């Protein structure tokens, strides 16, 4: 009944125009700027970006922290999700609600709390000092450790929720069947739970990994001006040195990584829909 092409075009046109002018065109120009030093296509900016030791350090640190946060979130996420699915339906709902809640709170507020906890006179240093374990306060703030803790707290909920929904879709008696047949807990995890919840793990992992790679607030607050990640480096290059070449290269890295992650997710979604 509703088949008019003109009508459908009129409905989508405002949003398409908006996205093209405000969003797609400026971003494409920004990306092309990094590929066209002095008006012709070349990879000069990319080569000089990656041959600068500081840039390379920041790039590798961002990848390393992203990987560490993702793996840690997966380990903690499985432990938590397995506990949650064993709760009563009511308890399960409440628990999921509590885990989602932090996602709605300002990341600045959530990250700021770690200054109180990890600072020189923070709780951790007070406790270590009182126990006589350290002579001088440890420097935890403004380090990779602080960023790692901050990112893990920020993104762990996404992993837990993905794993909870994957575990809920798993046949309930698979675990008890394996147990009856004599598998120990480790075997149950590797041979039954992991293969059956692989998709949830990949979904959660992609969300946590891309979230960590493109984080700005956490490294800005907990890393200070010395321990940079890609987004804080981008900001510094532009505000301090007016260096738009590096900014364009970093923008490209961020977009490529986040786009590939998204593609992977879409693949998974269509594969599941076909089954």
């Amino acid at each position: 009944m509703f088949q008019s092409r003109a009508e459908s075009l009129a409905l989508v046109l405002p949003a398409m125009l908006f996205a093209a002018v405000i969003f797609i065109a400026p971003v494409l120009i920004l990306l092309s700027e990094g590929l066209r030093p002095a008006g012709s296509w070349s990879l000069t900016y990319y080569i000089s970006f990656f041959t600068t030791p500081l840039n390379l350090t920041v790039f590798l640190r961002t990848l390393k922290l992203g990987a560490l946060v993702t793996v840690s979130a997966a380990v903690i996420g499985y432990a938590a999700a397995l506990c949650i699915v064993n709760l009563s339906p009511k308890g399960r709902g409440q628990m999921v609600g509590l885990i989602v809640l932090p996602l709605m709170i300002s990341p600045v507020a959530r990250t700021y709390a770690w200054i109180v906890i990890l600072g020189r006179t923070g709780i951790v240093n007070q406790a270590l000092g009182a126990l006589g374990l350290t002579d001088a306060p440890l420097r935890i703030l403004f380090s990779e450790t602080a960023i790692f803790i901050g990112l893990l707290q920020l993104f762990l909920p996404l992993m837990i929720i993905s794993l909870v929904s994957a575990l809920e879709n798993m046949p309930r008696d698979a675990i008890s069947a394996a147990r009856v047949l004599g598998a120990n807990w480790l075997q149950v995890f590797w041979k039954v739970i992991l293969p059956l919840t692989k998709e949830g793990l990949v979904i959660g992992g992609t969300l946590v990994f891309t979230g960590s790679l493109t984080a700005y607030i956490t490294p800005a607050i907990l890393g200070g001006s010395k321990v940079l990640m890609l987004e804080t480096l981008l900001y510094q290059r532009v505000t301090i040195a007016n260096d738009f070449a590096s900014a364009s290269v970093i923008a490209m890295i961020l977009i490529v990584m986040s786009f590939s992650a998204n593609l992977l997710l879409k693949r998974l979604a269509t594969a599941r829909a076909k089954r």
Partner: protein
Amino acid sequence: MTSRILSTAILGAVMIFLIGPFFIIVAASLSAGETLAFPPQGLSFRWVLKVFEIESFRSSFAMSMMLAVFGTLAALLIGTPVSYALARYKLPLGETIRTIVSAPIIVPGIVVGLALLRYLVIPFGFNLTLALFMAHTALVLPYAVRVVSASMTNLRSDIEEAAVLLGCSRLGAFLRVVLPNIRGGILAAFILGFVTSFNQVPVSLFLSGPGIRTLPIDMLAYLETTYDPSVAALSALLAFMSIGIVFLAERFLGFSRYV
């Protein structure tokens, strides 16, 4: 029995890690001392009250509120027709359209902000507040389309066709039949968009100028120079605001159904 204890211990530890810092922020903001500390030195509301006296927080709060409300409304205004078209028409490039409107999720906010500054604000003298508004609209658009689409797919098209057959105009049928039915989805999209826009930092980083700043950016700037508990107090207030919004939305709307 042991597995029960283990399970409680694991969940307890995870909850302390996720939610514990929030309680520390609340406690630190009630301190009477001059610097940020936990446990708080004495108890007072001086820092909570001070938040309301800091002029820049007041203006940046107003800015963030305005961006979140009008940015989300604008995104719904252009996004709802897209959701409707995607659900009702066989669009030749449906998938492409979906990808284009959800692109702002894939491109990091900091890149969008920089691109807008460099190619719209600087060369064309584009107003900075307007650029911020556009950036926040773009940011919320994917959520608006996705959440409204979800409630559109649950709506059968034949009641709308019936209205048209009975003499209602197409627009009239949309306003009187479709809109009341997707009201919940639109409200849920508004809340999700509002919270996302209000908390967003990277997209607004480069789009700041004298007197033009969003609240989270203002907080980051304040942190660099001052070490008193006022940011803790403001963080606690904002967290309570978010919790309140989500709680009310869940209570009256069943928010989690849509998100």
